């Protein structure tokens, strides 16, 4: 073989290889971009499920219409109110990262960051909490699960009251209702102390209601940085209050105290008579600010679902009310210590600082609801 021949032969092969590589990259790019968000979430869910043992999978999976599991969420620590599914604590590192990848796929980057900050806050709480806990592993599983009409009892394999660990970033539970699918509806739940994400996926639609976010401490230092998981909610709500004129404030500020969430866990599907200032009495700029406050909750879910939801809430805006109760001032860089509520035809948002001894600005519960569409029921009925 001459030199000339070899070069002739080699050249096309090299070309072919390069071309194939380029084509492969392009193809994968095209498929990724053509893939819908739901397809990505479904793939993440199936990946997560495939990492589990058969026993774990059974604990994670529920029927789509399991009303008990749907409502098995709370603001309270998991030791008191057991959740369904399995916790990050019970998972190996691979399973854990697959679980978090699934949660991340269903949320916007901002929403996922909020969730991580809430979980990290619970870790701070665990470290600063001086609680003794019971003897390690002492009475695990011995006590009957708590009853009550609130969240129904869990499967019983979780640390009940008095177990060593009360808080921490690994005490968050994941469960899947129905079969992950791009067509038929299913649900992803992720939550623990101060967190309850109920995400219904129905085709390309994504519904985040009802969802609870909370934080304690609602202001902490992590990696040398000050973190306020629900800081934007506090700041934007306060900015809107400040933007109101005296007449509007008079309407928006309620004359009575609100010690807690009105429509917290267990209060699905209820629509109370709205109060406060109606957004039709606001200026265009104030209405835009109100929508911006709302987006802190509506924007937790992934972008395309959030966009659809914001469009709905924007159409409702003139029928949306803003009410405030409590102090009308806030220290710089701190959270408000006042309660506020935003209510519209398809929306209830409550921001409720908790007065449990300490600074109410350090302990916050918030609720995000659509009374007409709990767990996507309204959408699926149509």
């Amino acid at each position, binding site marked *: 073989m001459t030199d000339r021949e070899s070069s002739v032969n080699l050249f096309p092969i090299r070309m072919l290889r390069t071309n194939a590589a380029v084509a492969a990259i392009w193809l994968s790019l095209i498929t990724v971009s053509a893939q819908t968000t739901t397809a990505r979430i479904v793939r993440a869910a199936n990946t997560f499920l495939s990492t589990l043992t058969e026993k774990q999978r059974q604990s994670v999976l529920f029927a789509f219409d399991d009303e008990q599991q749907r409502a098995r969420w709370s603001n309270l620590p998991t030791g*008191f109110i057991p959740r369904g599914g399995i916790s990050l604590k019970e998972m190996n590192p691979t399973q854990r990262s697959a679980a978090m990848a699934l949660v991340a796929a269903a949320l916007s980057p901002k929403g996922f960051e909020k969730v991580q900050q809430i979980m990290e806050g619970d870790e701070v709480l665990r470290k600063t909490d001086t609680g003794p806990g019971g003897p390690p592993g002492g009475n695990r599983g011995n006590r009957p699960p708590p009853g*009550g009409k*609130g969240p129904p009892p869990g499967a019983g394999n979780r640390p009940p009251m008095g177990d060593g660990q009360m808080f921490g970033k690994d005490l968050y539970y994941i469960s899947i209702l129905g079969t992950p699918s791009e067509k038929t509806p299913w649900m992803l739940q992720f939550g623990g102390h101060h967190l309850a994400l109920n995400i219904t996926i129905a085709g390309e639609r994504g519904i985040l209601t009802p969802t609870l976010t909370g934080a304690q401490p609602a202001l902490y230092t992590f990696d040398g940085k000050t973190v306020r998981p629900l800081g934007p909610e506090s700041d934007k709500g306060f900015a809107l209050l400040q933007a109101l004129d005296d007449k509007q404030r008079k309407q928006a500020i309620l004359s009575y*105290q609100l*010690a807690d969430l009105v429509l917290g866990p267990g209060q699905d599907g209820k629509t109370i008579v709205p109060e406060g200032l109606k957004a039709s009495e606001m200026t265009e700029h104030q209405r835009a600010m109100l929508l911006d406050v709302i987006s802190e909750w509506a924007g937790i879910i992934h972008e395309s679902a959030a966009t659809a939801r914001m469009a709905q809430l924007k159409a409702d805006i003139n029928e949306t009310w803003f009410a405030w109760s409590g102090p009308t001032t806030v220290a710089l860089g701190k959270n408000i210590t006042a309660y506020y509520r935003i209510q519209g035809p398809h929306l209830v948002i409550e921001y409720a600082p908790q007065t*449990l001894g300490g600074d109410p600005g350090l302990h916050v519960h918030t609720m995000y609801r659509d009374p007409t569409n709990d767990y996507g029921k309204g959408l699926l009925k149509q």
Partner: protein
Amino acid sequence: MRLRIVTAAAVLLCLVRIASAHRLDEYLQATIISVDKDHIQASMRMIPGIAVSSSVIASIDSNGDGIISDAEQRAYAERVLGDLSLTVDGKRMQPKLVSVDFPQVELMREGLGEIHIEFTADLPHGGPNRRLILQNNHQKQNAAYLVNCLVPRYPDIRIVGQTRNERQSFYQLDYVQAGGPTSSPLRQWWTNIRGSISALGFVSLFRLGMRHIAEGTDHLLFLLVLLLPAPLIVVGSRWAGLADMRSSVLRILKIVTAFTVGHSITLALAAFGVVRVPGRPIEVLIAVSILVSAIHALRPIFPGKEAGIAAFFGLIHGLAFAATLSELGLGRWDRVADILAFNLGIETMQMIVVAVTMPSLLLMSRTRAYPVLRIGGALFAGLASVGWIADRLLGMHRSVDLVVGAVARHAVWIAGALFLISLACWRLRYTFVRQATPTARFVGDSAEPVEI
């Protein structure tokens, strides 16, 4: 260290730990009321905080055996109901226990247990305006109360107001209930009217109507622009002549009346549910109506038919008024009095505006300055209407509203200035005309071509 604390001060630590998650020294009592036709239902969520739970549990567990029996649960629930004071229209009502549900005692001790109590109360017969007062005195020294009302399931029950004291231990609910099933339709109708008058207030709706038209600059703009050429007559295809005073006034009255008749008809039809039109097309049509009347003020396109046009577009403006009423939850047939009050408010404000601007218009029309006002006004309205059409069709932001709103905010000053200017023009015209064209003195009675 940790172990020492555990053994040394377990109870204290328990409190500290619990403080991280739980209600402390308050007894949260959250009530949600739902109003039905002949009874109310209420659900109470009761959560004793950790510092008060022991005493609450002790008071419930009357025999002290550490178990809360069914009998003890019911007895406690009855005691809670006994601590409520419920009155409807001043009559004291007896709450009836429907169900009681207790959490585990351990959960309650931790300050996490939710006691659920459901009760109902029959409503006494009464008029359409009802006032319910709920006072909760249970564990008043450490209670944190919440009281709310659900949006009623029945459309004939309308919540008018909620009043609470700061602690929410006192809660007053005012609502209007359309007549009972026993009364005759006529009687019911009358009761509704009476109810609406006293409940929401004829006066407040009347004011609302006035405010609506005063702030709804587009409605007024349409009317005013249509009135601009009213003192003129057509020569050829132009506004070239002056109508006499009497026929000018008559024409203005005709236009205003026609507009009123038009919008009253559709307002009533929409409120009775006969017609139902989506808001946005109406808003666009209203802007079109302004454009049409602005063009007409520049060049007569329907001379002599102003009243008919006013009536026709009045029909459209009425639909917009109806949309406003229904936004307030008032656009229903049983609110005849509300509609009447609202419409009268609109009429009154309209009359005030016309009465204020008409003298200026008539005075000025007798001067050479009038084309400036007519053309200037028509151009302003025309531009505004084009802007509105674009805004409303494309849903762009309301830049036009800002400009028109700024003008409207100074409406009183503008009207005053207009009157002074027209007076001045009138004076000047007299002297000026006498010097220049003495014949123009007869202008009031016969048409005199005026240059445009």
